């Protein structure tokens, strides 16, 4: 089995509102999977179905090849978007309680908590009450509690909201480390740029439907438009720009530094850059030549626009 989680045509309706419409997903093992889409698209409903907090009206979910059932909650770690802790309970006691609810024995939970508290350098928080902690500190505890029972699948809903940049980086590193150790991870967020660099796979959810999914690099390849940004230090060549306009589709151009430097954006008919480079050779010093890769956000907007075109 290559997939840790498979959803087949999952639908869920609340009254008249359709929260999910026949969504199918395949989440490969040992990868980071981005579940992306705007607020209210249905991401949280899907995640709650995976966590068996709600149940689908139609469709089925398979965990590690078997139909999802209640014993699987011990193999899933979930950091919800709406997350918190009991305010008047002590940190250590609370972490122990939550770990035991996930099925760990008390001694096992204690040992692992000690390891994580030392690792994140918060060992002296054990006897503090949660209300004495800052929001960022509480988030660390929540992260530990989520990963403590060494789940096969980790689900983070808007993981970086509420973290300051330093702690966000610490958590990011921990998540990458967890993937190294073989855990599969689902990221759900509406801020697509925040997880782009982390994800191996993504699925775009829009208005209760999945509109796109696959390997992130494949998607980017498919969505790139052969647009290149070029910067050229000119050697007093006249008529180059006109010449380029005649032969290529120049989207944008500008002279800077008193006409010494030409920057332009060009769209090529295919990925072959030979003709362009031949034209430029000898005309100056090429100091920038980059292919513009669309961001996930661009892909998302483009997909929605294409979809609306077809409908």
């Amino acid at each position: 089995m290559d997939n840790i989680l498979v959803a087949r045509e999952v639908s869920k309706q609340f009254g008249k509102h359709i929260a999910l419409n026949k969504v199918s997903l395949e989440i490969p093992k040992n990868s980071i999977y981005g579940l992306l889409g705007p607020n209210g698209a249905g991401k949280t409903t899907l995640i709650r179905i995976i966590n068996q907090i709600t149940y689908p009206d139609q469709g089925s979910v398979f965990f590690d090849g078997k139909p999802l059932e209640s014993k699987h909650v011990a193999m899933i770690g979930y950091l919800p978007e709406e997350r918190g802790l009991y305010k008047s309970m002590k940190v250590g006691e609370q972490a122990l309680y939550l770990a035991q609810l996930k099925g760990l024995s008390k001694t096992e939970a204690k040992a692992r908590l000690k390891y994580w508290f030392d690792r994140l350098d918060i060992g002296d928080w054990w006897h503090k009450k949660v209300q004495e902690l800052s929001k960022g500190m509480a988030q660390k505890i929540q992260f530990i509690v989520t990963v403590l029972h060494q789940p096969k699948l980790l689900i983070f809903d808007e993981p970086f909201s509420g973290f300051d940049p330093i702690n966000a980086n610490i958590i990011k590193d921990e998540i990458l480390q967890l993937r190294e150790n073989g855990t599969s991870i689902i990221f759900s967020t509406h801020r697509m740029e925040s997880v782009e660099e982390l994800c191996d796979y993504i699925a775009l959810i829009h208005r209760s439907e999945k509109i796109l999914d696959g390997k992130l690099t494949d998607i980017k390849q498919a969505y790139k438009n052969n647009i290149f940004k070029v910067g050229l230090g000119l050697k007093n060549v006249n008529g180059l720009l006109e010449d380029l306009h005649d032969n290529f589709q120049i989207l944008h151009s500008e002279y800077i530094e008193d006409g010494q430097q030409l920057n332009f954006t060009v769209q090529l008919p295919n990925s072959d850059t030979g003709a362009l480079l031949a034209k430029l050779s000898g005309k100056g010093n090429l100091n920038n030549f980059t292919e513009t890769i669309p961001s996930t956000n661009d892909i998302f907007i483009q997909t929605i626009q294409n979809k609306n075109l077809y409908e």
Partner: protein
Amino acid sequence: MSKLALIIKREYLAKVRNKSFVIMTFLSPILMVGMIVLIAYLTKINDDDIKTIGVLNESPYFTNKFKSNGPISYLDFREVSLESAKDSIVNMGFYGLLYIPDASDMEEAASASYFYTQDAPGSSIIDVLETVFTKQLRLQRLQDLGVSVADFDRVDHNFDIKTATFAGQQNLKGLNEIKAFIGGAFGYLIMMFIIIYGGFVMRSVIEEKTSRIIEVIISSVKPFQLMLGKIIGTSLAGITQFAIWIFSATILLGVVIAVFDIDPSALNAGAENAPGFSGAAAYASTADSTMQLYANELFKIPWAMLIGFFMVYFVLGYFIYSSIYAAIGAAVDNETDTQQFIFPIILPLMLAIYVGFFSVFNNPHGPIAVGFSLFPLTSPIVMLMRLPGGIGEGGVPLWQVITSIGLLIGTFIGIVWLAAKIYRVGILMYGKKPTYKELFKWLRY
């Protein structure tokens, strides 16, 4: 440890370790005793306050019939006008003036009499004055009919009938009221417990919602387990509190028995002579032995049965109500939004208490009492008020007890099921106060 046990343990400890719980547990008995002492003290002060009433009697009747007694003292005015008597009463700050004008006979004098006061007089004072008038008028009328005062004294005394059951047990007057009162105390206890601990359950659910831990928890356990664990844990904390109170009350009772020297074995002996009870013996019995009889009757109330049924009705009633409280807590975001939902819950509880005190006291086995002791939302309270009379002959028929518990169990299952559905949806809903219509919709999610 199972997940349910873990939840129960956490909820129990969270409650018991709470400072306000500890303070409540130890302070409320002290407050209770303090209140009783205070009320007794205030009553005593009130009684000590002697009211002086001036009597201006211009008639030849009623002379020396107004004798200072208890809270009233009389002051005779002679040879003054009504106006100056009034003035001096006001000046001296006395309570009032009784004016009896001169008349040709007693009836006329009485009906022309007036009682003047600064403000409207208290009814107890008027009672006292009227009693004196009534007695004198009656004496006068009897004398007019030719009955001598001596004859009248011989005729005029109250009679108390003695009662016994067919089984031959002597009944004591007011015993039914005492029994109903004890049942009422149990019922009242249940109502208070439901309101207080139901409120705790509700607040605890709201706390989980506002602290946003709820979704973390229910990704590990079923919402129903969490609700059940919360209700059980909170009620165990309540039972702990009651156990502490009962324990300290028992010790207190022991102290009282030791101090006032009531002999429980003598109490038991006193009850056996009921059938052959002679009139002479009744007159001979002192106040002490009457006390002994009452105490004995109290000892004979089937306490074990009563406490057993108290537990049954308590647990079922509490579960029904607290699961409703849990559902309310889940449906709202903060406590201020709970009012509209709480009122319909309190209503049957209040109804049970009032019906209990007004109807069950007078007629423990009448149709109203039976109806309310079968209806599941009121039965925990009303049935307990009836039960001190015993079960079976002379008490609550067995079928009623069984029916009432059966209905209660059925309702319990139904309500918990409904509440769990609302709870399951509500705990994940934030931001708006739901209407009853929406709650109804949640049942079908």
